[in-house]
């Protein structure tokens, strides 16, 4: 093991920033990160033992005890659940003879849940040894179990099990007309870099991750920093449940994304770019590496790009299963080989980002759009959309509709139009922007896709009238509690309390004051959390509570208080061990204490 680790660490140039990639290799080799490996890595990278342990324990895909040789993870996103994930999981577990979360006694296979895998248009989905399994059904599960029990290597499994379709159903402004390789770089230099920044400004392009900060402004701030070592980072940590457009963009439009990064680098004066690719998209890794190599060959990357004097190259870093790393400062921490804990802002990444240097972090789609704007100009882009939201938005549509997939619309399009296109009738509501976004009811379908009305990073989940709102809210609340990074108390404790209170009410233990108590927790988590995760974690409750207050009230019992857990059940162990079953050995769920 020592030799293996020594060679892995050497292969990454003893760079602490490569810690994630190093641990990924060790996890793959030994199915966990052994303590001896942690010590050796810390020594070789000259970083603290606690930093390595912290990182191993922080990320969902790293383990300190061995996983199975086949590590199966099933996506627990609401859309997977709507496609029958829970029944399938139970079947998988029984068939494989392993508990969810556990490893089979023979060490061959382990099974667990994971957060949204970005395959919501082709679920129920999962991962086996990091590779995507799509459109799972009982027959497929049978076949997979057979392959596992027969010891068939994953790379020998039929390729259709791993088939990931783009489902590009409605290309628009950007997706209809991809630019040719080098066109944006040529155009940017031909026009002049300051002039190209002016075109990006003129285009009105705002960040496509959801927050909507003006791209040109971000680039300008970065380029005006006195420090000249600067970085361009592409945020491909698409973790918001229900979002999968970056998966498609990186699969089919990666050249244009890299081109956008190169133009950004030229404008801000960066020599290095990094793509932070979410661990769930491991299957795209090699393809993207090949593409980067191809671009170097075509002089679109490397020294003196296209003879224009620009030096720039891009590397790819893989995440390891942490939603929080989609937050730009947590992403930078992760790129530096640390736990994905959001930094205090300010300073913002434009002045102090990767390695403390000025850094532009943009979403995949932002770079895609920027490249097109560099070629076609700001007016072309600004000619579409609304006053405050220029251009188009690429949506990942999933849930209860006939045609889930990728759709591109000019901003200002109504939700009803989108629902008509994807074949959604009988609509109860739509979750726009994922769990951290907004739930709108079927009374609001004339609202518009726009920063000034309904903003989204791309997630668009449709629910039909058979769906139970509480199951949706419960799934989202559990998601946030699971993904909280644990750094600040309002979020770490608050999301856990939120989950507990939501469970209490939805499981039928709610009483008079419980909805008020729920609202109080919501306000606390929302107002006091350190970053966007906590600040939005209460959105599922708040947006449904606002629209369906009567549904919440109906869940409450007409008593002043009831415990949120089975009180008598909590005595069971003691009863059994003391061999008792007398009246005093039992407790009533509801006391005589209430009015």
């Amino acid at each position, binding site marked *: 093991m020592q030799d293996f680790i020594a060679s892995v660490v050497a292969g990454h140039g003893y760079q602490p920033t490569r810690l994630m990639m190093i641990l990924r290799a060790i996890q793959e080799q030994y199915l966990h990160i052994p303590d001896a490996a942690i010590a050796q890595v810390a020594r070789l990278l000259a970083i603290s033992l606690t930093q390595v342990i912290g990182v191993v324990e922080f990320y969902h895909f790293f383990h300190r005890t061995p996983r199975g040789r086949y590590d199966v993870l099933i996506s627990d996103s609401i859309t997977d659940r709507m496609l029958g994930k829970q029944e399938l999981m139970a079947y998988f577990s029984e068939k494989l003879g392993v508990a969810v979360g556990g490893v089979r006694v023979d060490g061959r296979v382990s099974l667990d849940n994971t957060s949204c895998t970005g395959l919501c248009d082709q679920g129920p989905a999962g991962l086996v040894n990091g590779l995507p399994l799509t459109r799972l059904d009982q027959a497929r599960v049978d076949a997979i179990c057979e392959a596992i029990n027969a010891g068939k290597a994953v790379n020998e499994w039929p390729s259709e099990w791993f088939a990931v379709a783009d489902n590009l159903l409605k290309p628009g402004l950007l997706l209809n007309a991809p630019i040719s390789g080098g066109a944006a770089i040529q155009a940017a230099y031909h026009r002049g870099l300051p002039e190209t920044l002016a075109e990006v400004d003129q285009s009105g392009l705002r960040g496509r991750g959801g927050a909507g900060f003006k791209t040109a402004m971000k680039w300008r701030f970065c380029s005006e920093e006195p420090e000249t070592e600067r970085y361009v980072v592409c945020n491909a940590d698409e973790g918001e449940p229900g979002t999968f457009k970056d998966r498609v963009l990186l699969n089919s439009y990666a050249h244009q994304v890299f081109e956008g990064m190169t133009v950004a680098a030229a404008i801000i004066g960066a020599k290095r770019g990094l793509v932070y690719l979410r661990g769930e998209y491991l299957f795209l890794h090699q393809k993207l590496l090949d593409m980067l190599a191809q671009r170097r060959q075509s002089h679109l990357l490397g020294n003196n790009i296209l003879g224009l004097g620009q030096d720039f190259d891009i590397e790819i870093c893989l995440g390891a299963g942490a939603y929080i790393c989609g937050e730009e400062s947590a992403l930078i921490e992760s790129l530096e080989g640390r736990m994905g804990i959001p930094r205090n802002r300010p300073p913002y990444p434009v002045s102090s980002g990767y390695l403390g240097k000025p850094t532009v972090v943009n979403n995949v789609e932002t770079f895609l759009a920027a490249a097109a704007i560099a070629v076609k100009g700001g007016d072309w882009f600004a000619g579409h959309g609304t006053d405050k939201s220029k251009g188009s938005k690429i949506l990942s549509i999933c849930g209860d509709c006939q045609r889930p997939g990728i759709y591109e619309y000019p901003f200002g399009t109504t939700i009803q139009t989108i629902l008509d296109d994807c074949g959604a009738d009988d609509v109860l509501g739509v979750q726009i922007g994922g769990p951290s976004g907004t739930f709108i009811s079927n009374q609001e379908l004339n609202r518009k896709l726009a920063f000034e009305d309904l903003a989204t990073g791309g997630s668009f989940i449709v629910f039909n009238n058979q769906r139970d709102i509480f199951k949706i809210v419960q799934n989202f609340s559990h998601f946030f509690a699971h993904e909280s990074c644990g750094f600040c108390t309002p979020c770490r404790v608050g999301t856990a309390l939120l989950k507990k209170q939501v469970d209490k009410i939805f499981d039928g233990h709610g*009483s008079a*004051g419980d909805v008020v108590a729920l609202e109080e927790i919501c306000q606390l988590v929302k107002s006091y959390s350190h970053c966007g995760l906590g600040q939005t974690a209460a959105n599922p409750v708040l947006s449904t509570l606002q629209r369906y207050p009567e549904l919440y009230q109906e869940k409450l019992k007409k008593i*002043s*208080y009831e*415990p*949120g*857990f089975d*009180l008598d059940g*909590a*005595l*069971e*162990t*003691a*009863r059994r*061990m*003391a*061999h*008792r079953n*007398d009246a*005093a*050995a039992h*407790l009533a769920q509801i*006391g*005589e*204490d*209430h009015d």
Partner: protein
Amino acid sequence: MGGKIRVATTSLAGCFGCHMSFLDIDERMIELAQLVEFDRSPFTDIEHCGPCDIGLIEGGVCNSENVHTLREFRKNCKTLVAVGACAINGGLPALRNFIPLEECLAEAYLDGIGVENPQIPSDVELPLLLDKVHPIHEIVKIDYFLPGCPPSADVFWKFLTDLIAGREPQLPYELVRYD
């Protein structure tokens, strides 16, 4: 409220440290005694709580007896207060929540070093342990929470004098900071 305010206190899964801290109001106890009368409390040895204005609960809920006591307080006290870290969060006794109850009991009564005549105590008089220690607000509705381990004497004083005077109790920052 005619006559004196009736106050009841008890310690569930606690250490009586909060009660000791309460006593640290020292000579103000005389002033307090002008205003209140104690019902069930370690100060009086009254066994069961009668109708009261204020109930102060120290400690979390670790067994069935705690549940009955807490419910008795809730039934009789107009205002019920969680006093101290254990009542609010489970506190030190809740450290056992990370160990299965089965293992706790086995260690204490069956396999532990020095255990003679190993057996799990079993008698109808003995309360059974809950599998987890719970904060009291998970069992009954609680009206106020006094933080601290223990809350200082001044916290008790400020809280009770506010409440008795009919004011909404306010704890200034100096009383709830611990560094």
